[in-house]
């Protein structure tokens, strides 16, 4: 009954401390900072000027190029300035800073919580709406949704897989969304199915969320073509390729995309955002963020506006514990530590983790004894010990032959390494270098 992917995988402690905490709506902060690049692709171009009055839901930065999305104002107020700020990546980028005044929304947005199930828009209109409303993948990769919903010429798609796995320890934002907005999520799935012209959708959920499985299975009876697939608990099941293998048995070829095996994968958070955009005309200006950690006094799931400072989130969770050694943006496996906490929440912020100092430092690095644990943990069937060394020594050609670019950076190898080697750090370096070299070859 429970399915999973066959190769590799690990079982880190789940630590889902906030699984039974209902989502709390956080009040709008006095000032928001909205970076113009919250997605993969070209940054958007700001279209408002300093001092301009903006309404919540209004476009403040327009998409530039095909792989890009619009950015909307999450609040109403006045543009304080357009400046460079440090965002969650730790680097400076342009952002629109808005002083909040009241909470006035653009009139076209339907803010009622009434469930609208009937889909009136056509395929093209749905994709156009997703583009207009600035939707991106909410799982963390933030790839613009309208591109994923457009099936490239020559390819065909026969099913949609909805990612409700949430295999990262600690995070529960998707779990809460499925429980609290189940009908909306499934309506969103139906919209995605219509946009892609497919009849079948599978919602993959791990077995550690039995309430979400039973809730969605019950709801799915009213939706045509949607089934819920319970999955064994195993990290990294939320990886696109692993999820497809687990749900359908199809294997995405090396270097290929899910569409090559006729599948499109979307996150449950994205499905909900699609529902809001298409049925309510509401742009992506808020998201659920899990704020958690073992020493946090009031961990929880918070619905916040984009641009809210992370400090405000931490404050809402009872303040930063004294023993905090590391603040991570995202899950403990794939998330990145924040250099400073005065950064805004963006479309890709799924969680804020506060680790105690004792648990956050890396251990001393010891020599590799070729035990092979990393190879058995790798869900992509790679040899992390080998490709990390090739990358460390700058042997890029050989690293490419060893398929370093197939690595999805899940971190299972580093987690499992008994010598505590920074395997993924070097693999990431090698991967980016090999990709860059391949691009240079093409342009030459």
């Amino acid at each position: 009954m429970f399915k999973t992917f066959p190769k590799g995988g690990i079982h880190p402690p789940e630590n889902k401390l906030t699984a039974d905490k209902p989502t709390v709506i956080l009040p709008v902060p006095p000032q928001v900072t909205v970076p113009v690049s919250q997605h993969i692709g070209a940054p958007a171009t700001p279209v408002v000027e300093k001092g301009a009055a903006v309404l919540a839901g209004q476009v403040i930065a327009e998409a530039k190029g095909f792989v890009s999305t619009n950015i909307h104002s999450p609040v109403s107020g006045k543009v304080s300035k357009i400046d460079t700020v440090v965002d969650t990546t730790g680097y400076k980028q342009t952002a629109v800073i808005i002083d909040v005044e009241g909470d006035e929304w653009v009139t076209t947005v339907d803010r009622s919580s009434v469930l609208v199930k009937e889909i009136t828009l056509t395929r093209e209109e749905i994709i156009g709406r997703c583009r207009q409303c600035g939707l991106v993948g909410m799982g963390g990769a933030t790839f613009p949704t309208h591109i994923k919903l457009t099936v490239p010429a020559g390819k065909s798609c026969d099913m949609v897989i909805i990612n409700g796995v949430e295999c990262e320890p600690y995070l529960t934002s998707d779990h809460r969304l499925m429980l609290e907005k189940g009908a909306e999520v499934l309506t969103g799935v139906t919209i995605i199915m219509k946009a892609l012209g497919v009849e079948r959708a599978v919602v993959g959920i791990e077995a550690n969320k039995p309430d979400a499985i039973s809730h969605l299975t019950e709801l799915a009876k009213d939706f045509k073509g949607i089934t819920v697939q319970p999955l064994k608990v195993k990290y990294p099941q939320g990886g696109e390729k692993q999820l497809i293998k687990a749900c359908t048995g199809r294997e995405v070829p090396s270097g290929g995309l899910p569409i090559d095996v006729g599948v499109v994968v979307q996150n449950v958070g994205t499905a909900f955002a699609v529902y809001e955009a298409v049925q309510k005309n509401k742009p992506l200006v808020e998201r659920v963020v899990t704020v958690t950690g073992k020493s946090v006094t009031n961990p929880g799931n918070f619905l916040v506006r984009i641009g809210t400072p992370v400090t405000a989130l931490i404050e809402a969770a009872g303040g930063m514990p004294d023993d905090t050694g590391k603040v991570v943006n995202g899950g403990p496996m794939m998330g990145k530590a924040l250099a400073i906490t005065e950064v805004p929440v963006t479309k890709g912020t799924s969680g804020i983790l506060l680790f105690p100092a004792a648990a956050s430092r890396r251990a001393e690095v010891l020599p590799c004894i070729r035990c092979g644990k990393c190879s058995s943990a790798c869900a992509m069937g790679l040899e992390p010990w080998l490709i990390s060394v090739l990358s460390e020594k700058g042997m890029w050609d050989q690293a490419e032959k060893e398929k370093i670019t197939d690595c999805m950076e899940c971190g299972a190898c580093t987690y499992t390494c008994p010598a505590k080697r920074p395997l993924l750090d070097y693999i990431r370096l090698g991967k980016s270098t090999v990709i860059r070299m391949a691009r240079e070859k093409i342009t030459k």
Partner: protein
Amino acid sequence: MSSTVLLTIAMLSVLGLLAAMILYFVAQKFKVVEDPRIDLVNEALPGANCGGCGYTGCRAFAEALVKSTSFEGLNCPVGGADTMGKVAVILDRQPVALEPKVAVVRCNGTPDNAARTSYYDGAMSCRIAHSLYGGTTGCHYGCFGCGDCVLACKFDAMYMDPMTELPVILDDKCVACGACVKECPRNIIELRKRNKKDRKIYVSCVNKDKGGPARKACKVACIGCGKCVKVCPYDAITMDNNLAFIDSYKCKLCRKCVPECPTGAILEIGFPVKEQKPAEPAEAITD
């Protein structure tokens, strides 16, 4: 019995002769005609294979030298004028006088100057750190201190100073091959003209932020005030993106800019200490 031995020897000799003849004719037929000067030039080069010339090793550079018609754009930074002079003799050309260079680290973000705001314990590689975040200080331009440049140096001319957490270049060992310049993901290291007695005047900062944020991140950051540009009598200093840059080929080492800098971002190195008027001696304490 003895006939078997003799026969074996005879057979082997004949086979050997035959093989030698075949090899001789094949070698004649497929002979690669190589300019003998390539070998001579290759011998004259230092043989460090550092790649400082831009070619993959000394041999490739020797081939390029022989093939070229002039020395324009071709220089061995390691051997310098001596080596290029020898090469010029071999190739029967006029040597081009080239000024020697030296690598300079343009960051002074010591723990005292730039307060650490976070702690990095990932893989000790500047490139990896650079891909992950902005840095352990508030400055997003400065040195990570992981030592990629030191590993890249093939001449033992660099080391990491544990006190300043910055790389140090030993001027007498640096051959200006540029390996560290290429390795640094932040473009902090620069090749500058080597002056007499290794004297240097340079802006030890690459922070392109506006004055406020730059100063907040690091006490000795260039804040882009432009005072040095105004005071320079030789137009050697330019201001770009809130950052001053001293052109080492225009700079005459007059040192006028050094006291002008309000943050002390301009460093003077190798000069004799200016004689300061001794402070009034405190009155001898009697009793």
